[in-house]
């Protein structure tokens, strides 16, 4: 396939220069690579997105796609995966959607270790609703809904997923497309719940482009052992998602281990719609016969 096969022809309505374009490229590239290397079947890929600026990716990827509610990407993804385990499911979330509205689902999706990929476009702001603070916003952020500044520290999504048993935890950067592409490829091929928090500056409401460019560094450069839980946890706590001069922001794969997936518990799970069941109504009601 060619990368252009993923285009839909729909008009892109992100702000000109939005870093979401970078993610879109990374996602397309990763899928193209995987399909061309026979790692995944294009027809079997399903995207899932919620509501926010990021959600518009629904319109820009020529894939099977479920555009669901704000904060509900994860339960939908879960349902799709058990609805047909053959599918390669890729979920997209915003930081508002995932860490505010839908955080319950993140905690539990990590636990279930569903074999699917989930990436958050973390711009630390509710963008589509014009720039309010989210639980991912840095301490002190002043926004139209929080003019007094936020008092608490942001959620650390990496640490949160680690503590809840995620088997693949990564961070990437919307402006480093090759890095992002690689991480997404690894996430999709990983068997288990793959979580990627993508730093995605919103140039209209939370423009951290410059800062992030200066402060991110790659885990691969520091010999990080991604199969070690303690190391992963330590690295995930290295940056607190706030902005201080000496912030060091690791990107890359923090953690990746083999772990049984959600499916293991269910011998009967299958591609249901191809399963020809013939319910025998007499047999079903038999036991209620006096």
């Amino acid at each position, binding site marked *: 396939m060619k990368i252009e096969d993923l285009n839909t022809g729909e008009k892109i309505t992100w702000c000109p220069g939005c870093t979401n374009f970078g993610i879109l490229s990374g996602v397309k590239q990763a899928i193209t690579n995987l399909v061309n290397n026979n790692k995944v079947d294009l027809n079997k890929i399903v995207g899932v997105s919620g509501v926010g600026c990021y959600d518009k990716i629904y319109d820009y990827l*020529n894939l099977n796609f*479920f*555009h*669901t509610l704000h904060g509900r990407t994860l339960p939908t993804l879960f349902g*799709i995966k*058990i*609805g047909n385990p053959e599918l390669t499911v890729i979920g997209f979330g915003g930081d508002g959607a995932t860490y505010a509205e839908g955080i319950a689902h993140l905690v539990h999706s990590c636990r279930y270790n569903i074999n699917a990929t989930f990436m958050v476009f973390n711009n630390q702001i509710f963008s589509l609703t014009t720039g309010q603070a989210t639980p991912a916003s840095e301490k002190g952020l002043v926004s139209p809904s929080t003019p007094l500044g936020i008092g608490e520290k942001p959620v650390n999504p990496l640490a949160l997923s680690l503590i809840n048993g995620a088997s693949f935890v990564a961070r990437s950067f919307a402006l480093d497309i090759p890095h992002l592409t690689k991480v997404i490829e690894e996430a999709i091929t990983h068997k288990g719940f793959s979580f990627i928090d993508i730093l995605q500056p919103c140039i209209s409401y939370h423009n951290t482009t410059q800062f992030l460019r200066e402060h991110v560094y790659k885990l691969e450069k520091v010999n990080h052992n991604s199969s070690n839980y303690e190391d992963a946890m330590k690295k995930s706590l290295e940056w607190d998602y706030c902005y201080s001069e000496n912030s060091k922001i690791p990107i890359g794969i923090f953690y990746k281990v083999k772990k049984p997936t959600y499916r293991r518990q269910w011998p009967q799970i299958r591609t249901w719609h191809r399963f020809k069941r013939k*319910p025998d109504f007499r047999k079903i*009601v038999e036991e209620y016969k006096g």
Partner: protein
Amino acid sequence: MEKQILIGGAAGQGIAKTALLIGKIFTNSGYYVFNYRDYPSLIKGGHNFNILKVSDKPVNSHENFYDMIISLNQDTIDKHREKLNKRGFVLGDKNLKARNLIELDISKVLEETGTPKKFGIDVLIGAFFKILGLPIENVLKVVEEVFKKKTDIIEKLIRRGYTSVEQKIELPEPNEKNKYFMTGNEAISSGAIASSLDIYFAYPITPATPVLHILASKQIENDFMVVQPENEIAIINAALGASYAGAISMVGTSGLGFSLMAEAISLQGISEVPLVLYLGQRTSPANGVPTYTSQGDLKFAVNAGHGEFPRVVVAPGDSKECFYRTIETFYLAYKYRVISIILGDKHVGESNYSFDEFEEPKIKPSNFITTPSEEYKSYSITENGVSPRAVPGENAKVRASSYEHNELGYTTEKEDLIVKMNDKRLRKMDFIKEEINKLKPVSVYGEGKNLIVGWGSTKGAIIDSLKKLENFRFLQISYICPFPTEIVKREIENSNEIILIENNVTGLLGDIIAEQTGKIIEKKILKYNARPLTSEEIVMKVEKVLK
């Protein structure tokens, strides 16, 4: 002949199980039985009781007076003695104090047989059936079936009970056929399995929990899956995901969980991903009276979720109807890509109904999935509003959206498309209306110039009350959405006195009838003490209301 039997004791003493066993013994012997279950929201202690109505003719409800009380404690007698018929009697241990007590020396039996206290109830069962003159073989056959092996002690105790008393009552010969004996929840579960259910999603909640338990226990044998995710919001969204992916999906809950699902119900509306939802009502608002019954969620079921979109709401009135209606909901949901709501309640869900036979369902299970061409459009605009269902994984791209969209599913804000898509979705309602006209959306029982109108679990008591009411028909409305306007209007117009009967505070069906037909029913019998109506009560109140 009709006998009312109350059996009562504390939670944990096995009251419900015993009532079930008694019911099964009767139905196995060819009698009709209705079994009502009453229990507070606690695990051990308190006061549980069941009321059985037994007859050689069909029975559909219980009464609040008794011919016989089987009592496991004094509390039961104290609470119910006033409702014991003049010539009724109490069966229980000799330590109990009651008028007309048929005494058993249970402790002695237990001591002599060296069995633990909890088996005392078996002595009572034995004695009970002797009093009614049922052959002991009938009793033991069912006991064996129910407990499978290791029934030796139980059998012994039943025999001891059986021989320790005299027959007091002569039951008429029943018809020969043994009966089905089934709760609404069992019937809904069975209907779902018969519809080729793939995945059931639920979170525990009274009174829908039994469906979760029943289906969970049958998943391996029937090759489907039962999942209990983190909360109701996850449940319905996951169910929509699974349905989108191709699985025949269903969720079950009660009012609290249903409230939490409202947003995703609206998502169902615009995404047109098929879904079946079981809503088992209990006494509201909020936690209300959690283990008791009510019909208080009707208008909420019809209106839940922001915005306007088609839906099916069907309210079966007994367990047999639960079975067929459940099959219909799957058919309508998956054929028309809508949400179908089975609106039950504690009373229909947890009471056992008996009946002679199941007829083979006319509707055969189908997921209505088509094989898409490459030009497949997820939201193609068609004459009947239904865009053929396809699932991801084949050659076409299948899209589902929470936003307004064009035929391919891409987001739109265009005026004409918005109109077209709304029209397309709403159009389905006309076709569903035609379908339900073939599914007997209403039933009329009895004959007479006067009309009782009701829905759902009041059906049994109303039908039983007709025997004692003169000149009354009963119009049972099963389909609430789409509403069978013409038939209801006609029935109302062709009646003298019209009485609305509901198990709620404000008469919600009355509102819907007025909305749909313009007919306002002034005379109402509304019961809202969290308990179901009985036929006696209805007869009394009808007289009052007509005065």
